[in-house]
């Protein structure tokens, strides 16, 4: 069922604008729409003054910075209290200006350390290659080292470099070279530190790059640098841990406060943003929107109480054009409420049209139960559903769990009717079908016919609702289409009943005439294409009825898999192995048993049932209310 909505127009003095905005937000039951959606209301869009726009821009910038900080420090579970919203902007800006550089410095240092931690192992591999060729002179005081690695294909270059270095250092440099692997030749040049310029120049002239290491590792022979590298690698995690500890400390100290500022600022921004939907004249403002009929009195009395008689609140006439734009809010009893989520999964119903939630709440669990139809599986899913319901207190997961619980309850009921517990295992422990055994070959035909009858009833109900909707909506094409389908389908049932001798043969001619009339009406709804499409649509309708065979098919697949599990367990020599295999197959069947009937029940509703009457595409009712902000802040306002 959807709640009755009323279009509202509120006109007041500009001096009361902020008070009206805050009162509407506190009420939380008025959806504010753009003025342009209400053609009959004439006013120009409200223009905000420069100071307000500047303040909004400042707040947006501050919110972005606060969110940046919260991304680093982490979002707390609860926000703190904001003592005074009036000084909020200045206080938050000032403290964020102080905190942000600290946090940025910490994160930037952390990133640098991580990059260093990732790169040092690469230098380690290179330095290790040079270890075997270190001459003793490398460790003498006053000497320096330069390492060079080149591809072995270019060893000629090294010879030339070696000659130049010896010349430029007057023979005081020592050059050691060796092949260190299949593709690389290493050269280590040891020289008095005073010749560093000449050595660099010699390498540069031959276009050979020396091995350059991070400054943090210092200078020296490769073994000394390698030891420094190991010390650095050991120190980096400690430094990272220190930074993390500081971030955690800052988070403990600041994050609740930051979140409360963020929420409070977004609250103020929300209030300001809604002003863009207002209209104005020279002295007054105008706002339009929707409120549930049951809340109208509350809205009027509260606005009068806080603003006074200078405010006019009036309900606008609900023209067909406005009705198309009316937001929708569903209102169903608690037991059917979870199925609203399943309806919304497809689309919200349009305002003024049928809400199929209650019908879905009736049929969905029954279809689920008919497909699964097993005491054992049903009981396990019921327990699983109930256990998880304790964890999930709200949201779509809770709704899905509730539908699962209801479906599982019906699965247990049908399990007793079919005499099934873990497939054929129930029979072994003395469970007998209260209705019929669907595994038995002689009952399969009956099972199939039963599902087709269920499909026929379900679709006929859908078409009756569709005809009723078409009459309410005064839609001729829908009336012809759905009415034609309904007449044709009922005629077809009559023909089948006559053929099976349930009805006298004399009714055959009227039934065939009615069938033809139904198809002609259906074709007429489709225009000229109807000559071709009408009969095809009718065949599609028969396909829709046959689609309910899936109730039998899914159920049989499940029961045969369970039967396989039980029989495989008996065929294996070892009892323990047999039981393990049986449990695994039953577990698989249980998962399929939860998933498959859900999907197929959904499909039967979405494709076969809803398409006969359902008008989706509704606009959700989103009242203007506080989205953010702590309770303490609210109370302070």
């Amino acid at each position, binding site marked *: 069922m959807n709640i009755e909505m009323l279009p509202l127009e509120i006109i007041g003095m500009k001096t009361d604008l902020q008070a009206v905005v805050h009162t509407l937000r506190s009420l939380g039951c008025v959806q504010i729409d753009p003025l342009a959606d209400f053609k009959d209301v004439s006013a120009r869009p409200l223009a905000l003054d420069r100071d307000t726009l500047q303040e909004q821009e400042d707040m947006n910038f501050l919110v972005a910075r606060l969110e940046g900080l919260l991304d680093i420090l982490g979002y707390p579970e609860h926000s703190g209290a904001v003592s005074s919203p009036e000084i909020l902007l200045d206080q938050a800006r000032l403290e964020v200006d102080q905190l942000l550089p600290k946090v940025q410095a910490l994160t930037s240092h952390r990133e640098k350390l991580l990059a260093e931690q990732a790169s040092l192992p690469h230098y380690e591999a290179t330095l290790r290659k040079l270890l075997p060729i270190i001459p003793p002179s490398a460790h003498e005081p006053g000497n320096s080292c330069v390492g060079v690695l080149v591809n072995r294909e270019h060893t000629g270059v090294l010879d030339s470099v070696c000659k130049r270095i010896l010349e430029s250092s007057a023979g005081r440099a020592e050059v050691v070279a060796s092949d260190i692997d299949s593709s690389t030749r290493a050269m280590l040049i040891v020289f008095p530190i005073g010749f560093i310029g000449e050595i660099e120049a010699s390498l540069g002239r031959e276009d050979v790059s020396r091995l350059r290491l991070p400054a943090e590792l210092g200078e020296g022979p490769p073994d000394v640098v390698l030891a420094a590298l190991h010390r650095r690698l050991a120190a980096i995690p400690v430094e990272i841990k220190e930074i993390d500890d500081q971030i955690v400390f800052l988070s403990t100290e600041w994050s609740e406060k930051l979140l409360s500022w963020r929420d409070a600022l977004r609250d103020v921004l929300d209030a300001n943003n809604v002003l863009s939907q207002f209209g104005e004249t020279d002295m007054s403002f105008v706002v339009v929107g929707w409120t549930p009929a049951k809340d109208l009195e509350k809205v009027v009395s509260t606005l009068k109480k806080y603003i006074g008689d200078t405010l006019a609140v009036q309900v606008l006439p609900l023209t067909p054009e406005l009705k198309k734009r009316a937001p929708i809010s569903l209102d169903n009893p608690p037991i059917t409420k979870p199925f609203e989520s399943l309806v*919304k*999964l*497809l*689309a919200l119903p349009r305002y003024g049209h049928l809400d199929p939630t209650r019908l879905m709440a009736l049929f969905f669990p029954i279809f689920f139960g008919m497909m699964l139809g097993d005491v054992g599986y049903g009981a396990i899913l019921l327990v699983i559903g109930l256990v998880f319901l304790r964890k999930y207190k709200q949201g779509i997961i809770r709704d899905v769990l509730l539908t699962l619980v209801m479906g599982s309850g019906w699965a247990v009921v049908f399990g007793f009717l079919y005499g099934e517990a873990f497939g054929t295992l129930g029979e072994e422990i003395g469970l007998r079908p209260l209705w019929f055994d669907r595994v038995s070959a002689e009952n*399969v*035909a009956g099972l*199939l016919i039963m599902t087709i009858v269920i499909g026929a009833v379900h679709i006929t109900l859908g078409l009756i609702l569709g005809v009723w909707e078409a009459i309410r909506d005064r839609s001729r094409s829908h009336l012809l289409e759905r009415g034609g389908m309904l007449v044709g389908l009922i005629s077809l049932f009559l023909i089948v009943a006559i053929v099976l001798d349930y009805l006298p043969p004399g009714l055959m001619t009227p039934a065939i005439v009615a069938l033809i009339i139904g198809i002609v009406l259906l074709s007429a709804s489709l225009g000229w294409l109807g000559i071709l499409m009408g009969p095809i649509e009718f065949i599609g309708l028969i*396909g829709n009825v*046959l*689609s309910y*065979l*899936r109730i039998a*098919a899914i159920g049989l697949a499940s029961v045969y898999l369970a039967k396989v599990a039980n029989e495989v367990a008996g065929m294996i020599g070892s009892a323990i192995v047999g039981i393990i295999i049986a449990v695994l197959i039953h577990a698989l069947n249980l998962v399929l048993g939860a998933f498959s009937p859900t*999907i*197929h029940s*959904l*499909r039967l509703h*979405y*494709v076969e049932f809803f398409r006969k009457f359902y008008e989706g595409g509704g606009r959700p009712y989103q009242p203007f209310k506080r989205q953010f902000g702590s309770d303490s802040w609210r109370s302070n306002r």
Partner: protein
Amino acid sequence: MDAGLTAIGAGLAVGLAAIGTGLAQARIGSAGAGVIAEKPEALGTVILLVAIPETMVILGFAVAAMVLLLGG
């Protein structure tokens, strides 16, 4: 021999229909996954679209049941 051919016929009725359904669902499913990535609120519509070709295999099942029950 007749019983064997009947069983093969029933198997083909379901099996070939299942292949057809599978091919259709593979294409619709991959496109649907893309749609959901861009527009999560379209989940219901995608389930509906993926579910549509299943009618083929259900009709195949109906034919198989008829072959087994009436022909066997």
